[in-house]
């Protein structure tokens, strides 16, 4: 089944039990940044169920190759080479074509290329730490990158982020907008991380942990991790709800 455009029906109601609540005091920054009033619930209107198109023509060849997209000529960043690949689907299991997938990450030492970043691990002159791509007709995407390192952060006195890659995904509608993080199978820091633990359901957390994928691993070159991403599904247009009263 494909997610053929144009689709004009509203999205499924968001299952908020799959997501972190706004107020998670063990992740301290959330304390002053969490709305306290109830959200106003509303079925999507044209303003939320539509969204822009990101054309493949706007991308360059190396936008999704972080090994090459910032490296000096003839150089490459330090760190284990990995392929991150997967499929963007919606809750119906339909591939989401043309989705904008943006990702960013620390280098192999756990250091971000950002002027406010103060971790003592060094910058890598050949690593920018950002990439983007657009899913193909069936929702598939891939990135080549290096394995990010874990890093300490000011929250508790000894909190460490597990190795992770940040993902921003823009599907077909503004209501599908999602930002999340990908973790790596087997990382012992995952269950210790206060940000991971903002998600109350362990089964939901497991859906952010990418398994090693030996079938996609390129022999003598790079290991592969498979990371599928699920966006909200759309209701079928065959069953339009009745017009609202009032």
């Amino acid at each position, binding site marked *: 089944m494909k997610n053929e455009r*144009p689709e004009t029906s*509203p999205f499924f109601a*968001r299952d*908020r039990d*799959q*997501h*972190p609540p*706004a107020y*998670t005091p063990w*992740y301290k*920054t*959330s304390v*002053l940044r*969490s*709305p*306290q*009033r109830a*959200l*106003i*619930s*509303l*079925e999507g*209107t*044209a*303003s939320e*169920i*539509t*969204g822009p*198109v*990101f054309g493949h023509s706007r991308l360059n060849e190396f*936008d999704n190759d972080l090994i090459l997209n*910032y490296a000096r000529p003839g150089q490459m960043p330090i760190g284990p080479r990995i392929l991150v690949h997967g499929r963007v689907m*919606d*809750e119906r299991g339909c591939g989401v074509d043309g989705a*904008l997938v*943006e*990702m*960013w990450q620390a280098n192999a030492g756990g250091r971000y*290329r*950002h002027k*406010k970043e103060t971790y003592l691990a060094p910058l890598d002159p050949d690593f*920018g730490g*950002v990439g*983007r791509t657009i899913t193909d007709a069936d929702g598939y995407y891939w990135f080549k990158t290096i394995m990010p390192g874990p890093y300490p952060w000011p929250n508790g006195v000894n909190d460490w982020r597990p190795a992770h890659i*940040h993902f*921003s995904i823009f599907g*077909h*509608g503004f209501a599908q*907008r*999602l*930002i*999340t993080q990908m973790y790596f199978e087997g990382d012992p820091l995952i269950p210790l991380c206060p940000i991971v633990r*903002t*998600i109350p359901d362990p089964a939901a957390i497991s*859906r*952010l942990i990418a398994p090693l994928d030996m079938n996609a691993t390129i022999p003598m070159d790079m290991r592969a991790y498979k990371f599928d991403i*699920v*966006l909200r*599904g759309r209701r079928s247009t065959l069953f339009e709800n009745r017009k*609202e009263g009032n």
Partner: protein
Amino acid sequence: MVQPLGYLKESPSQTAGPYVHIGCTPNFAGIHGIFEQDLGAGPLYDEKARGERIAVNGMVIDGGGNPLKDALVEIWQADADGLHNSPSETRGTADPHFRGWGRSPGDMETGEFLFETIKPGRVPFRDGRLMAPHITFWIVARGINLGLHTRMYFPEEVEANAADPVLLRIEHRNRVPTLIARKEGEGLYRFDIRLQGEGETVFFDI
């Protein structure tokens, strides 16, 4: 036992973290040479676009009254005729000179975001009633665990706002003004977003 419904679950959200600008506005973050241009930057219109040019600025403010300096704000809106530049738009063809989507990182020192756009036309609600002109907003930042959806309405649209089916959904009427921008000059609007506490902006589960 019954058959499984077979639906997948939406991937859980995680905070955008302190370095969302690396990923979404790398040139703004000082990472040059990978993408020529940050997506969503600059005016949402070109010189041929129809409609009144406006600028919308504001800040995202935390529960302590401090502006966020690490937020990312996106907007999405209809063109001057109320049509979206989207394949899901079925009511007509939107102005090709207006892209409808914008992204602003907010100034690193002040936290001020800015969008140069046009005043949107009216879009019908699901039952056909026209909504008042509005811009949809989505806000992410460190400390925000799931992106926040809200809307900005226009202060001069008094009648349309009073009949807007979305604004009418807000039971606590004293909260409606949190969604109405302040006009600060010709074509210049200010829309501050308060995450928490007094004057907390209305956010939508939409």
